[in-house]
């Protein structure tokens, strides 16, 4: 029977098993499971929100029911959550094993494969069918924490170069401004632009699944691979659906992670037939406008500075009751995005 591994001893056993299999034991999981036989741990698996990971089965127990039991336990642990689709990263040789468990491959890149359980991606695309437009379209993927005049400038400049521009707002809720607020401010701030549609990225771009490194600290060597998978998923599934031929980015003077994402983009997207266009950032004073700068000004309650950095719609929110509540959390917020 598969059980939750809770105590330190069991956790160490799981760590041993994972490391014996040549993987790194990653601490960032929500739940850890294991299967014992005669007091010995024979299999283990973990779930980090909607990502299944560290699935390891002792050599002697492979080919039997272990994997099915582990996957059942992982799926069962999501029964009372709002998670409906699960993801797994695995190697090419194990891809078919997971396909036999009804996982669908989303991206295969070199020896690594990202698979999804459930119809998340097709459902996500179908939901936005009404937004499909003919022509040569563009895309920007933005976090907008919060929406600034810099974002506004990027979107306006990009929209002028294509038939239709899709603005994908990062769904992942790990930023100071909650997703609903970020989304609403982008919508309000671009409402006057006729050829712009605003939609969310769901799990499929710059998310916890496709690009966890964006939200982690810099300098992780898995980062490069994650970026490439994230971009390939965009190029092979999202871009064709919306007829996207151009992806726009602002140059990144501050954040190393974003900068290497931007540097990776032309090669990866280019190979898939999508052009990357980098635009210069809008300046205020003599420095580029960034959401980081906005949050800093907000922390100092410098509304004169804010007026020069954000559009009226965002400023109105920042001065509202809800907006002022965020001030308190902003005092302790130290992340880059």
């Amino acid at each position, binding site marked *: 029977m598969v059980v939750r591994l809770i105590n330190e001893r069991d956790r160490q056993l799981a760590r041993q098993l994972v490391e014996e299999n040549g993987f790194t034991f990653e601490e960032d999981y929500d739940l850890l499971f294991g299967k014992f036989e005669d007091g010995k741990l024979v299999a283990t698996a973990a779930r980090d929100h909607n990502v299944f990971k560290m699935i390891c089965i002792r050599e002697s127990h492979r080919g039997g029911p272990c994997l*099915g039991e582990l996957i059942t336990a992982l799926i*069962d642990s999501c029964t009372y959550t709002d998670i409906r689709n699960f993801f797994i990263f695995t190697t090419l040789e194990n891809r078919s094993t997971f396909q036999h468990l*009804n996982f669908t491959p989303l991206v295969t890149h070199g020896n690594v494969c990202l698979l999804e359980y*459930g119809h998340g991606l097709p459902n996500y695309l179908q939901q936005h069918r009404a937004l499909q437009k003919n022509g040569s379209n563009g895309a920007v993927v933005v976090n907008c924490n919060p929406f600034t005049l810099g974002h506004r400038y990027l979107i306006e400049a990009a929209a002028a170069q294509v038939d239709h521009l899709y603005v994908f707002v990062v769904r992942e809720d790990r930023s100071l401004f909650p997703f609903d607020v970020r989304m609403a401010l982008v919508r309000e701030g671009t409402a006057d632009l006729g050829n712009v549609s605003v939609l969310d990225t769901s799990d499929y771009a710059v998310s916890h699944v496709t690009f966890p490194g964006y939200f982690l600290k810099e300098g992780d060597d898995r980062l490069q691979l994650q970026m490439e998978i994230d971009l390939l998923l965009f190029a092979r599934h999202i871009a064709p659906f919306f007829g996207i031929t151009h992806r726009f980015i602002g140059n990144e003077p501050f954040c190393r992670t974003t900068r290497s994402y931007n540097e990776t983009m032309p090669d990866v997207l280019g190979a898939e037939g999508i052009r990357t266009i980098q635009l210069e950032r809008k300046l205020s004073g003599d420095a580029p406008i960034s959401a980081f700068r906005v949050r800093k000004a907000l922390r100092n309650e410098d509304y004169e500075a804010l007026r020069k950095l954000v559009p009226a719609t965002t400023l109105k929110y920042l001065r509202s009751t809800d907006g002022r509540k965020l001030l308190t959390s902003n005092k302790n917020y130290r992340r880059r995005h």
Partner: protein
Amino acid sequence: MKIVRKAQAGTMQSSDLMVFLEPAPQLRVEIDSTVKKQFEHLIRRQVEAVLDRLSITSGVIRISDRGALDYAIAARLETGLFRACADQKESL
């Protein structure tokens, strides 16, 4: 019967299936199966027979099948439906 809450039944073992149920305004059946190419129509027929029998007319029903036989499909789906529906008395 009417699906009023989220529920699921079954396992991902070989020759079994998992059934996921959720309330929704319309009826929608999604089928994933390792033998989808050959048997999707038979799985769907079996699912529809159970839904008919229990007069289910709305809800999202997701099937993730690993080659289960027809009676296993019926049994798992019934179990899931009993868990997902409010009034269990009038069933069967």
